């Protein structure tokens, strides 16, 4: 099993790595790049804790091979803030108490961020659908949905 050289951009930074074919994108992000913000929940695509943006769209990184990152752009939770300034979605989650244990939070925020990028003023149904693939056991989702609504208005939606 030969390692492959890949080069990609992650959170705005160029990276070159050698990875084994059987390494997942999630393992590479967490273990090779030490970006542990992205979490492994179920490892098989049922919970969304590992959600990152791959070329701008949300995917379960546990189901993407690391080699597939080649020539692509990845955005993880660590890449959302600019210097010390949090993204409006992150601020909104804090202000609206949209988290408890925080384990689902990075994935939840990435899905929310991706939603607001493609839909500036989502209604409640659209928000629920956008995070349907992100399981949360602590909050019951109510405050998460509120946080996304409020973030959308602060970003300049309706």
């Amino acid at each position: 099993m030969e390692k492959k050289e890949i080069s990609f951009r992650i959170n705005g930074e160029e990276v070159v790595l050698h990875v084994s074919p059987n390494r997942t994108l999630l393992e590479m992000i967490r273990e090779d790049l030490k970006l542990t913000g992205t979490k492994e929940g179920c490892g098989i695509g049922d919970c969304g804790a590992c959600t990152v943006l791959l070329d701008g769209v949300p995917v379960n990184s546990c189901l993407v091979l690391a080699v597939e990152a080649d020539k692509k752009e990845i955005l993880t939770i660590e890449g959302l803030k600019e210097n010390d300034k949090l993204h409006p979605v992150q601020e909104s989650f804090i202000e609206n108490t949209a988290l408890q244990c925080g384990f689902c939070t990075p994935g939840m925020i990435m899905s929310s961020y991706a939603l607001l990028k493609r839909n500036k003023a989502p209604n409640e149904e659209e928000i629920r659908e956008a995070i349907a693939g992100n399981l949360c056991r602590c909050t019951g989702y109510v405050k998460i949905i509120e946080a996304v609504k409020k973030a959308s208005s602060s970003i300049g939606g309706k």
Partner: protein
Amino acid sequence: MIFYRRLPKFDYVKPASEAELFKVISDGRKAHVYAGGTDLLPKLKKRLLPPPDVLIDLKGISDFNYVRIFDGKLRIGPTATIYSVYTSSDVVKHFPILSQAARSIAAFQIQNRGTIAGNICNAVPSADSAPALLVLQANLTLKSREGERDVRIEDFFLGPTRTVLRDGEILREIEIPLLDSESLGLYTKLSVRGRMDLAIVGVATLILKRDGKVKDVRIGLGAVAPIPFRAKKAEEILKDGKITEASINEAAKMAASESSPIDDHRASKEYRLLMVETLVRRSLKKLLGV
């Protein structure tokens, strides 16, 4: 018993062209072809499949990624994602039932990676795109180093997770003939939660009209037999415009009798049969305005 967290070891190739693909696919190594990987990777992780020597990633072949109307047919390439199919303006305009079905699969993260081609090649009886493709009478082009062959969707499935695909063969294209009449379609997925579930029962109903009169009724069923199938006897009852509440009820009952669901931990046979009848009846009534 081992609970694996890591994928087994395998090699990886990403051919840049069809020619390269067919060279690699039959070079003697045990190979798995994949596009989205959302069905394959979990299976490999859980060791439900013997680990292959090599995974062949189809996404390097840019010619494989398309959803477009060409030559009187909607054509879907092997690496077109579920999301691209459900949002394609051509699909939404001409085959809304397929858009509906694709949209009901899992959630965005899976839809951005998984493919319609993969959904049917994986061939679980509950595959959501299958009933819709059946009623749309899709044609599948299978291709290998030896050449191409056409298979009708209704002849594609052999059993749970088994299809007519041979070793070294891939699903090259899904073709759906444009309908020459006004059509109305509905895909209904019965599940326990609002999302993320496999269908307990999947019902695709398509009504074709000409001059305002019903010309054809097609019913596709998923998750209630070893393979997704057309309930032809039920369709027979509604042929030639014999549409009444009574005939709809009869057709719904017949669709159930054509089904052969199993008892499993998701649902019982009894419930599935009742639901086939219920959902077929409802969708027919809704589409036929009865």
